[in-house]
Protein backbone atom coordinates (compact mmCIF):
# COMPACT_ATOMS: atom_id res chain seq x y z
CA UNK A 1 0.00 0.00 0.00
CA UNK A 2 1.26 3.46 -0.92
CA UNK A 3 2.19 5.72 2.01
CA UNK A 4 0.88 8.90 0.31
CA UNK A 5 2.82 11.52 2.26
CA UNK A 6 2.61 9.82 5.66
CA UNK A 7 6.20 8.52 5.62
CA UNK A 8 7.64 11.36 7.79
CA UNK A 9 5.02 10.71 10.49
CA UNK A 10 5.68 6.97 10.36
CA UNK A 11 9.42 7.59 10.70
CA UNK A 12 8.84 9.78 13.77
CA UNK A 13 6.60 7.09 15.21
CA UNK A 14 9.28 4.44 14.58
CA UNK A 15 11.85 6.58 16.37
CA UNK A 16 9.64 7.54 19.31
CA UNK A 17 10.75 4.72 21.60
CA UNK A 18 14.44 4.50 20.78
CA UNK A 19 17.01 5.76 18.28
CA UNK A 20 17.90 3.43 15.44
CA UNK A 21 19.37 3.32 11.93
CA UNK A 22 17.63 3.59 8.57
CA UNK A 23 17.28 -0.10 7.83
CA UNK A 24 15.66 -0.79 11.23
CA UNK A 25 13.27 2.15 10.76
CA UNK A 26 12.06 0.61 7.48
CA UNK A 27 11.65 -2.79 9.14
CA UNK A 28 9.74 -1.30 12.09
CA UNK A 29 7.27 0.44 9.79
CA UNK A 30 6.68 -2.74 7.83
CA UNK A 31 6.39 -4.95 10.92
CA UNK A 32 4.09 -2.61 12.84
CA UNK A 33 1.76 -2.30 9.85
CA UNK A 34 1.82 -6.11 9.50
CA UNK A 35 3.41 -5.67 6.07
CA UNK A 36 0.40 -3.74 4.74
CA UNK A 37 2.46 -0.59 4.37
CA UNK A 38 5.18 -1.49 1.96
CA UNK A 39 7.44 1.15 0.51
CA UNK A 40 10.63 1.32 -1.47
CA UNK A 41 13.39 1.82 1.03
CA UNK A 42 15.48 4.03 -1.25
CA UNK A 43 13.00 6.85 -0.53
CA UNK A 44 13.38 6.52 3.24
CA UNK A 45 16.64 8.49 3.42
CA UNK A 46 15.45 11.59 1.54
CA UNK A 47 12.58 11.73 4.05
CA UNK A 48 15.07 11.34 6.92
CA UNK A 49 17.23 14.15 5.51
CA UNK A 50 14.19 16.43 5.33
CA UNK A 51 13.21 15.60 8.92
CA UNK A 52 16.77 16.27 10.03
CA UNK A 53 16.88 19.62 8.20
CA UNK A 54 13.58 20.60 9.84
CA UNK A 55 15.05 19.74 13.23
CA UNK A 56 12.59 16.91 13.90
CA UNK A 57 15.27 14.19 14.06
CA UNK A 58 18.98 14.26 14.87
CA UNK A 59 21.61 11.88 13.56
CA UNK A 60 24.84 10.54 14.99
CA UNK A 61 27.43 7.88 14.22
CA UNK A 62 27.17 4.54 16.02
CA UNK A 63 28.20 0.92 15.59
CA UNK A 64 26.19 -2.27 15.33
CA UNK A 65 27.89 -5.67 15.08
CA UNK A 66 31.18 -3.88 14.50
CA UNK A 67 29.74 -1.97 11.55
CA UNK A 68 29.68 1.83 11.44
CA UNK A 69 26.12 3.12 11.12
CA UNK A 70 24.23 6.39 11.11
CA UNK A 71 21.65 6.43 13.88
CA UNK A 72 18.64 8.72 14.06
CA UNK A 73 16.80 9.94 17.17
CA UNK A 74 13.68 12.02 17.52
CA UNK A 75 14.13 15.56 18.86
CA UNK A 76 11.79 17.46 21.20
CA UNK A 77 10.40 19.33 18.18
CA UNK A 78 9.91 15.93 16.51
CA UNK A 79 7.91 14.66 19.50
CA UNK A 80 5.67 17.72 19.37
CA UNK A 81 5.20 17.27 15.62
CA UNK A 82 4.33 13.60 16.15
CA UNK A 83 1.65 14.42 18.74
CA UNK A 84 0.15 16.97 16.32
CA UNK A 85 0.34 14.60 13.32
CA UNK A 86 -1.24 11.79 15.33
CA UNK A 87 -4.17 13.96 16.39
CA UNK A 88 -4.66 15.22 12.83
CA UNK A 89 -4.52 11.72 11.42
CA UNK A 90 -7.08 10.39 13.91
CA UNK A 91 -9.43 13.25 13.08
CA UNK A 92 -8.96 12.68 9.34
CA UNK A 93 -9.36 8.92 9.70
CA UNK A 94 -12.61 9.31 11.73
CA UNK A 95 -14.01 11.65 9.10
CA UNK A 96 -13.22 9.31 6.20
CA UNK A 97 -14.60 6.32 8.12
CA UNK A 98 -17.84 8.21 8.76
CA UNK A 99 -18.19 9.01 5.06
CA UNK A 100 -17.37 5.50 3.88
CA UNK A 101 -19.74 3.91 6.40
CA UNK A 102 -22.67 6.01 5.22
CA UNK A 103 -21.88 5.61 1.52
Amino acid sequence: MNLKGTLPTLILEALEREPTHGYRIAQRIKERSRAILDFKEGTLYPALHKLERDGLVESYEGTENGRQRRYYRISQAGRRALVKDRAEWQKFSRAVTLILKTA
Partner: protein
Amino acid sequence: MQSATLETWLGRATCRLSANSAAQVRSEIQEHYESARDEALNGGASPTEADRIALSSLGDASTAGRQYRKVLLTAAEERILRETMWEARAVCSRLRWLFPVAALTLCSAAWFFIAGQNYLALALVLMAAGMSLLLAGSRLPINSPARAQVFRGARWGWLAAVVLLAVWPDPLKQSWLLVAVAWPIVWVEWTLFSVRRKLAVDQWPRPLYF
Protein backbone atom coordinates in the same frame (compact mmCIF):
# COMPACT_ATOMS: atom_id res chain seq x y z
CA MET B 1 28.17 -8.89 -10.71
CA GLN B 2 25.64 -7.82 -8.02
CA SER B 3 27.96 -5.06 -6.76
CA ALA B 4 27.96 -3.75 -10.30
CA THR B 5 24.15 -3.69 -10.15
CA LEU B 6 24.20 -1.75 -6.88
CA GLU B 7 26.74 0.53 -8.51
CA THR B 8 24.29 1.13 -11.38
CA TRP B 9 21.53 1.88 -8.87
CA LEU B 10 23.77 4.33 -7.02
CA GLY B 11 24.86 5.93 -10.29
CA ARG B 12 21.23 6.66 -11.18
CA ALA B 13 20.23 7.79 -7.69
CA THR B 14 23.18 10.17 -7.36
CA CYS B 15 22.83 11.61 -10.86
CA ARG B 16 23.29 15.45 -10.80
CA LEU B 17 23.99 15.50 -7.05
CA SER B 18 27.06 17.33 -5.75
CA ALA B 19 30.11 15.22 -4.85
CA ASN B 20 29.43 15.58 -1.10
CA SER B 21 25.75 14.70 -1.45
CA ALA B 22 26.59 11.72 -3.68
CA ALA B 23 29.12 10.42 -1.13
CA GLN B 24 26.50 10.69 1.61
CA VAL B 25 23.92 8.81 -0.48
CA ARG B 26 26.44 6.10 -1.36
CA SER B 27 27.36 5.60 2.28
CA GLU B 28 23.78 5.33 3.60
CA ILE B 29 22.49 3.19 0.74
CA GLN B 30 25.44 0.81 0.97
CA GLU B 31 24.83 0.46 4.73
CA HIS B 32 21.18 -0.26 4.04
CA TYR B 33 21.95 -2.71 1.25
CA GLU B 34 24.38 -4.67 3.42
CA SER B 35 21.84 -4.92 6.27
CA ALA B 36 19.13 -6.13 3.88
CA ARG B 37 21.56 -8.60 2.31
CA ASP B 38 22.69 -9.94 5.71
CA GLU B 39 19.09 -10.43 6.80
CA ALA B 40 18.25 -12.27 3.58
CA LEU B 41 21.32 -14.51 4.03
CA ASN B 42 20.34 -15.23 7.65
CA GLY B 43 16.87 -16.11 6.38
CA GLY B 44 18.39 -18.85 4.20
CA ALA B 45 18.66 -17.08 0.85
CA SER B 46 21.58 -17.82 -1.46
CA PRO B 47 24.11 -14.96 -1.95
CA THR B 48 22.68 -14.23 -5.42
CA GLU B 49 19.13 -14.25 -4.10
CA ALA B 50 20.17 -12.07 -1.14
CA ASP B 51 21.67 -9.50 -3.52
CA ARG B 52 18.49 -9.46 -5.56
CA ILE B 53 16.27 -9.04 -2.49
CA ALA B 54 18.47 -6.26 -1.09
CA LEU B 55 18.47 -4.40 -4.37
CA SER B 56 14.75 -4.74 -5.05
CA SER B 57 13.94 -3.44 -1.54
CA LEU B 58 15.56 -0.13 -2.53
CA GLY B 59 13.05 0.38 -5.33
CA ASP B 60 13.46 2.50 -8.42
CA ALA B 61 16.76 4.41 -8.49
CA SER B 62 15.39 7.31 -10.56
CA THR B 63 12.53 7.87 -8.09
CA ALA B 64 14.98 7.85 -5.19
CA GLY B 65 17.25 10.21 -7.16
CA ARG B 66 14.38 12.67 -7.65
CA GLN B 67 13.65 12.57 -3.90
CA TYR B 68 17.33 13.06 -3.08
CA ARG B 69 17.61 16.06 -5.39
CA LYS B 70 14.76 17.70 -3.46
CA VAL B 71 16.64 17.53 -0.16
CA LEU B 72 20.38 17.41 -0.98
CA LEU B 73 22.52 19.90 -2.87
CA THR B 74 22.93 19.26 -6.57
CA ALA B 75 26.20 19.89 -8.40
CA ALA B 76 24.79 23.11 -9.95
CA GLU B 77 23.63 24.41 -6.56
CA GLU B 78 26.97 23.69 -4.93
CA ARG B 79 28.77 25.52 -7.76
CA ILE B 80 26.53 28.59 -7.44
CA LEU B 81 26.99 28.55 -3.66
CA ARG B 82 30.77 28.33 -4.05
CA GLU B 83 30.80 31.23 -6.52
CA THR B 84 28.53 33.31 -4.26
CA MET B 85 30.87 32.74 -1.33
CA TRP B 86 33.87 33.64 -3.47
CA GLU B 87 32.17 36.89 -4.55
CA ALA B 88 31.35 37.73 -0.95
CA ARG B 89 34.98 37.21 0.07
CA ALA B 90 36.55 38.90 -2.93
CA VAL B 91 34.19 41.83 -3.49
CA CYS B 92 31.76 42.55 -0.68
CA SER B 93 34.42 42.62 2.05
CA ARG B 94 36.18 45.51 0.30
CA LEU B 95 33.28 47.87 -0.08
CA ARG B 96 34.04 50.41 2.70
CA TRP B 97 34.94 53.01 0.10
CA LEU B 98 31.31 52.93 -1.07
CA PHE B 99 30.11 54.83 2.01
CA PRO B 100 31.53 58.28 1.05
CA VAL B 101 30.61 57.61 -2.61
CA ALA B 102 26.99 56.86 -1.62
CA ALA B 103 26.84 60.00 0.52
CA LEU B 104 28.29 62.07 -2.31
CA THR B 105 25.82 60.57 -4.80
CA LEU B 106 22.92 61.45 -2.50
CA CYS B 107 24.19 65.05 -2.19
CA SER B 108 24.45 65.26 -5.99
CA ALA B 109 20.88 63.93 -6.29
CA ALA B 110 19.65 66.70 -3.96
CA TRP B 111 21.50 69.28 -6.04
CA PHE B 112 19.98 68.02 -9.32
CA PHE B 113 16.53 67.93 -7.72
CA ILE B 114 16.84 71.58 -6.71
CA ALA B 115 18.07 72.36 -10.23
CA GLY B 116 14.84 70.80 -11.58
CA GLN B 117 16.43 67.75 -13.23
CA ASN B 118 14.16 65.24 -11.51
CA TYR B 119 14.92 62.23 -13.71
CA LEU B 120 18.66 62.50 -13.10
CA ALA B 121 18.05 63.11 -9.39
CA LEU B 122 15.94 59.95 -9.19
CA ALA B 123 18.62 57.91 -10.98
CA LEU B 124 21.22 59.13 -8.50
CA VAL B 125 18.97 58.36 -5.51
CA LEU B 126 18.57 54.81 -6.84
CA MET B 127 22.31 54.52 -7.32
CA ALA B 128 22.90 55.67 -3.73
CA ALA B 129 20.27 53.24 -2.50
CA GLY B 130 22.00 50.38 -4.36
CA MET B 131 25.35 51.23 -2.80
CA SER B 132 23.72 51.51 0.65
CA LEU B 133 22.19 48.08 0.20
CA LEU B 134 25.58 46.62 -0.68
CA LEU B 135 27.05 48.25 2.43
CA ALA B 136 24.13 47.20 4.63
CA GLY B 137 24.70 43.55 3.73
CA SER B 138 27.95 43.45 5.64
CA ARG B 139 27.10 46.00 8.38
CA LEU B 140 23.55 45.25 9.58
CA PRO B 141 22.76 42.35 11.98
CA ILE B 142 21.05 40.25 9.32
CA ASN B 143 21.29 36.92 11.11
CA SER B 144 17.85 35.34 10.84
CA PRO B 145 15.84 34.11 7.85
CA ALA B 146 13.13 36.72 8.51
CA ARG B 147 15.60 39.63 8.47
CA ALA B 148 17.29 38.15 5.42
CA GLN B 149 13.92 38.05 3.65
CA VAL B 150 13.34 41.73 4.40
CA PHE B 151 16.81 42.56 3.07
CA ARG B 152 16.29 40.55 -0.12
CA GLY B 153 12.86 42.16 -0.57
CA ALA B 154 14.49 45.60 -0.38
CA ARG B 155 17.14 44.53 -2.88
CA TRP B 156 14.57 43.20 -5.36
CA GLY B 157 12.54 46.38 -4.93
CA TRP B 158 15.64 48.39 -5.72
CA LEU B 159 16.38 46.27 -8.79
CA ALA B 160 12.81 46.61 -10.07
CA ALA B 161 12.99 50.39 -9.65
CA VAL B 162 16.30 50.53 -11.57
CA VAL B 163 14.88 48.42 -14.39
CA LEU B 164 11.69 50.50 -14.57
CA LEU B 165 13.67 53.71 -14.67
CA ALA B 166 15.92 52.32 -17.41
CA VAL B 167 13.06 51.35 -19.72
CA TRP B 168 10.65 54.16 -18.87
CA PRO B 169 8.39 55.39 -20.53
CA ASP B 170 8.01 52.37 -22.86
CA PRO B 171 8.71 49.21 -20.81
CA LEU B 172 7.03 46.79 -23.26
CA LYS B 173 9.19 47.86 -26.18
CA GLN B 174 12.38 46.72 -24.46
CA SER B 175 10.96 43.76 -22.56
CA TRP B 176 12.91 41.23 -24.71
CA LEU B 177 16.14 42.92 -23.64
CA LEU B 178 15.01 42.85 -20.01
CA VAL B 179 14.23 39.14 -20.14
CA ALA B 180 17.64 38.37 -21.72
CA VAL B 181 19.51 40.42 -19.11
CA ALA B 182 17.43 39.33 -16.11
CA TRP B 183 17.54 35.61 -16.91
CA PRO B 184 20.99 34.85 -15.35
CA ILE B 185 20.09 36.87 -12.24
CA VAL B 186 16.79 35.05 -11.85
CA TRP B 187 18.52 31.70 -12.37
CA VAL B 188 21.12 32.39 -9.65
CA GLU B 189 18.46 33.68 -7.24
CA TRP B 190 16.25 30.67 -7.89
CA THR B 191 19.20 28.32 -7.23
CA LEU B 192 20.05 30.13 -4.00
CA PHE B 193 16.38 29.93 -2.97
CA SER B 194 16.57 26.17 -3.49
CA VAL B 195 19.82 25.95 -1.48
CA ARG B 196 18.18 27.88 1.41
CA ARG B 197 15.35 25.36 1.47
CA LYS B 198 17.76 22.43 1.57
CA LEU B 199 20.18 23.60 4.23
CA ALA B 200 19.23 23.93 7.90
CA VAL B 201 19.46 27.58 8.99
CA ASP B 202 22.40 26.89 11.32
CA GLN B 203 24.34 25.60 8.29
CA TRP B 204 23.76 28.68 6.16
CA PRO B 205 27.00 30.36 5.15
CA ARG B 206 26.85 34.15 5.67
CA PRO B 207 26.35 35.06 1.97
CA LEU B 208 23.21 32.93 1.84
CA TYR B 209 21.38 35.51 3.99
CA PHE B 210 21.68 38.04 1.14
